[in-house]
């Protein structure tokens, strides 16, 4: 269970400290029992409570010491787990940035965010629950057992025999429960998720006219779920039942044998009472190990998932190239690049050009943008910039010259002005205002200091794109990457946005991936993608004349047999 534990930094001194405190605690537990037994024996022998009061105080002092030690153990464990989980989160966060958006997309934003936030606190809880429990388990039963054995052999033997029996039963039943749960896992998951599924699809159910009758389905599935859960629980709870049962039986047996020993006169009341009080303490650590089992499991799982992210191979940053500001003489060429779905991509560009990347969904447009943005390394083939050959563009000098406009630009909670300033935090208000104006946000001028993003003013898709454009105007970097910037907008918004964006492309190296054909006429050169390969390249007119993939895309968009389109085309 705790094998991963030793991987965490600085865990050894913490474990050592906890062990030391636990040994002290063991002594206090024994003293507490002994002094309680002593006080009780003296009372039993007829001494007045007032006379025994100092004895009682001793008991109380031992008890106080015991729990005070526990208090410090917990504090130490919590302190450590807080520190280590914060460090882990920090490392993972940095690693995520280094792995880049492609990895985040693959893993799912939701999952990663939950892991970072929930996972960190689960991991923290796991550590601060598990560390003291583990040490308790190793120290307390052994110490108590030694003392009991020394006091009374019979009781010592009973305790020694029960613990392994108990553990064996617990493990066996635990395994049986898991086997049972695993065997019906899939069906079980579906039952468990049925209600959430129903709520999420409620609109569809309504359209299908099934919403009303679906209530019965929910009742039925909930009942099925209850039955199958109860079946699993019957077995699952047996494991803790075995623990309880054997522990209780063992305490009862110890009591009986102590009683017999007392009747025979082989034993005095004081040691007998001491042993009786200690017997439940002997089982306590094992029983505590079982509680919060799920919290422990989740935390362990979260810790492992985070470690896995940290162990992902990082970018090879040895081979970083130097790059001056992208000029008309600069060149970029890809030669036989293969990565993810891309096959043998070769092309080269020189200077500041507008390059369109077009193709159906799944043709590899976004993957190519990922390569160009330096989010994905080539599995084979080479990329060279000004003759310097590398396997990926995760290069500081390259990425620092890029602006990126995706389909859903990143808008954070803050003022509109701050959002525009994103790439250039020290830009003056005047600069921001100018950039906003260029991006067609002139009507927003009074709103530059308004809060937008989460919690603030809601923005439409077109407005978000305009903010991204304003950002790019302000950053004024020589290379621009756009990934499907307008496909989700209505045509008029799209047209207006296009108008504002076109000046942004001037004098830059632009890569624009889209399936919206109207952009292509503005491009100097077009890369047509199909099935992960470059199908053809050329200008709009050249490609139309080729009558290849591009021409068929254009035709599909226009409708196959449409004369009107042709007539307008002629006029244009």
């Amino acid at each position, binding site marked *: 269970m705790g094998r991963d534990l030793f991987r965490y930094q600085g865990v050894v001194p913490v474990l050592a400290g906890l062990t030391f405190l636990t040994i002290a605690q063991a002594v206090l537990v024994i003293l507490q029992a002994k002094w*309680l037994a002593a006080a009780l024996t003296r009372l*039993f022998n*007829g001494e007045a*409570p007032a006379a*025994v009061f100092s004895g*009682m105080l001793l008991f109380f002092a031992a*008890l106080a010491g015991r729990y*005070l030690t*526990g208090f410090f153990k917990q504090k130490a464990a919590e302190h450590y787990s*807080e520190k280590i989980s*914060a460090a882990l989160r920090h490392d993972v966060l*940095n690693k995520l*940035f280094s792995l880049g*958006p492609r990895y*985040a997309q693959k893993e799912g*934003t939701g999952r990663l*965010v939950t892991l970072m936030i929930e996972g960190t*606190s689960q991991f923290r809880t796991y550590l601060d629950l598990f560390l003291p429990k583990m040490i308790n388990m190793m120290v307390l039963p052994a110490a108590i057992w030694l003392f009991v054995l020394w006091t009374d052999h019979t009781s010592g033997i009973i305790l020694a025999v029960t613990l392994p029996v108990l553990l064996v039963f617990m493990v066996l039943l635990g395994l049986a429960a898991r086997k049972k749960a695993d065997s019906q896992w899939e069906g079980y998951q579906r039952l468990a*998720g049925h209600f959430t599924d129903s*709520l*999420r699809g*409620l*609109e569809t159910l*309504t*359209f299908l*006219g*099934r919403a009303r009758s*679906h*209530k019965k389905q*929910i*009742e039925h599935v*909930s*009942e099925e779920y209850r039955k199958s859960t109860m079946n699993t629980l019957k077995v699952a*709870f047996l494991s*803790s039942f075995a623990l*309880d049962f054997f522990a*209780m039986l063992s305490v009862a047996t110890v009591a*009986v044998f102590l009683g*017999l020993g*007392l009747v025979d*006169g082989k034993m005095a009341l004081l040691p*007998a*009472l001491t042993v*009786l009080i200690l017997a439940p303490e002997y089982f306590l650590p094992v029983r505590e190990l079982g509680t919060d089992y799920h919290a422990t499991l989740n935390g362990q799982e979260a810790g492992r998932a985070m470690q896995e992210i940290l162990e992902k191979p990082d970018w090879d940053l040895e081979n970083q190239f130097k790059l001056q500001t992208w000029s008309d003489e600069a060149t970029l060429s890809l030669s036989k690049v293969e990565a993810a779905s891309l096959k043998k991509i070769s092309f080269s560009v020189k200077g500041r050009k507008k390059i369109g990347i077009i193709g*159906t*969904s799944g043709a590899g447009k976004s993957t190519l943008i990922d390569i160009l943005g330096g989010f994905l390394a080539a599995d084979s083939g080479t990329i060279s910039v000004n003759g310097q050959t590398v396997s990926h563009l995760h290069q500081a000098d390259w*990425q*620092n010259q890029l602006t990126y406009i995706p389909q859903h630009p*990143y808008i954070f909670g803050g003022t509109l002005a701050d959002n525009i300033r994103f790439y250039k935090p020290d830009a003056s208000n005047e600069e921001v205002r100018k950039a906003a104006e260029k991006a067609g946000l002139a009507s927003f001028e009074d709103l530059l200091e308004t809060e937008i993003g989460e919690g603030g003013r809601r923005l*439409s898709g077109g407005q978000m794109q305009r903010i991204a454009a304003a950002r790019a105007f302000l*950053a004024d970097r020589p290379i621009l990457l756009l990934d499907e910037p307008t496909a989700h907008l*209505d*045509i008029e918004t799209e047209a207006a946005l296009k108008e504002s964006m076109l000046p942004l492309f001037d004098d830059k190296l632009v890569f624009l991936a889209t399936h919206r*054909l*109207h952009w292509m*006429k503005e491009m100097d050169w077009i890369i047509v993608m199909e099935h992960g390969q470059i199908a053809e390249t050329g200008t709009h007119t050249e490609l139309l004349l080729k009558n290849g993939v591009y021409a068929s895309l254009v035709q*599909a*968009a*226009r409708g196959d047999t449409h004369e009107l389109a042709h007539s307008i085309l002629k006029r*244009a």
Partner: protein
Amino acid sequence: MNWLIPYLKEHKRLLAAVILLGSLTIFAASALLFSSGYLISKAASRPENLLMIYVPIVLVRTFGIMRSVSSYVERLMSHSLILKIVSRMRVRLYEAIRPQVSRFKTGDALGLFADDIEHLQDVYIKLIFPWLSALCVYALSITALGFFSVSFALVMGLYFFVFTVLVPLASLLVMKAKQMKQKEQRAAQYSRLADTVMGMGDWVFSGREKAFVASYEQAEKEWTRLESSKRSFARGRDLCLQLLAGAAVVTTMIWAGGQSADGQMAPILIAAFTLVLFPITEAFLPLSSAAEEWAGYSQSLGRLQTAEKEKPAAHFIQPVFGDDGLALQFRRVSFSYNESEPVLQHFNFSARAGEKIAVLGPSGAGKSTIMQLAEGLVSPQSGTVLVNGHEPDEYISREIAVLNQQPYLFNTTVMNNIRLGNPRATDEEVIEAAKKVHMHDYIQSLPDGYQTVMQETGSRFSGGERQRIALARILLQQTPIVILDEPTVGLDPITERRLIETVFDVLEGKTILWITHHLAGMEQMDRIVFLDGGQIQMDGTHEELVQQELRYQKLYELDMGIS
């Protein structure tokens, strides 16, 4: 509260059994130690005959077994009860939300309610059941003590009051503010981190990742500070409770010793009474830490309550009959979601049976509102909406089918998903529908064929394939009217074109209202209406509009990539 209490009343017997067993577990644990203490003390008095300690010996074993058995049965029963309650809650919540589905923008927002119910399970298992059992034991033990000594019973009553009521309540109050604040911070962190992960490209290019990490860590530190102060409170509280338990033990010893010295009680009972305190206080201790979670539960409760409160009043339908042969009719319809922004104003529109009409217009022009009005999901503030001559009623799904942007595919087999359109459809009919939408071969090629289970929200299929499955579903629904609400958004032109071809192919002969903002395929439509500013701006065939309307012509050119 009306999400918690009624269920307890409803399952009175089961609840009573759970509480009884819970109390029995505590009782058996106490009785085990009581009888052990008694047994040993009795044995120490060296009785002549072994039989003298025979009864306590039997009792010790009995209580030992009883404790574990009753604890096992109690856990099973309480889980069974909770699952029953959950299933009732689900039905109730579902019924509350069902009529107001149009209020929620995304399915995910609805899915959150399911989490709230999951969350409420804990309030029963961790707080309500153990607390009621503890109160039960509290009452019984103090009453029993009362027979020995009223004054001592009162003192113990006070101790137990602190354990079961005072400290849990104090925990609740102290933690509440902190927990609320933490929740707030958590929510902010969630959206911030989600935004960042999605906008990661921007952060990397801007070269400002380090700045983000630093500022995020700062926010986390704030949260951690609260968490630490919560934990240190809990730690201190638990220590105090342990000390208090120790004090209770000492008090009991003094009392029992005194009673024995006065000859009012046999000395063999001293140890028995004293030892009982341990299992009882052990049962009381977890109540305080359970109570501190209350703030979280009360938030879930609050959300469920609002979901129910906003249930709209029942809508009474008066039969209104319109012109014959009109499948859809909007007469001077006005509608707005909020008063400042009217969506439709005195909107007039009608569709003849069998007509294929495209509804165009910029986003926010009210195109989807037309669909919601026809479906009866929302009611107009003034004017009349008629479907086949009457207002939309609860059987509207027999007349209108909807294919929207994101049809939901349920986490069940492909067969079941398609069959949702008509539960009485045979397998053959389902397969026939799949063939029509050109999905049959693909589905057959999957290892499990029609029995293939959708993965999470249908991610197994691509956008175009999902729409086709939903289309097959609609075919089985066999309605005379079909509304297509932007089903091709986000699809590339070729996929879009093919899907649209299939749609019009299989829906031949039906009245079709196609809401879209693209102009691909307009030439196939009988009529095109262009909506803007809550009213129809243009109305005519594609050819008419191209020739007569400059705005339409410009749009068309833009969309075709011609200009």
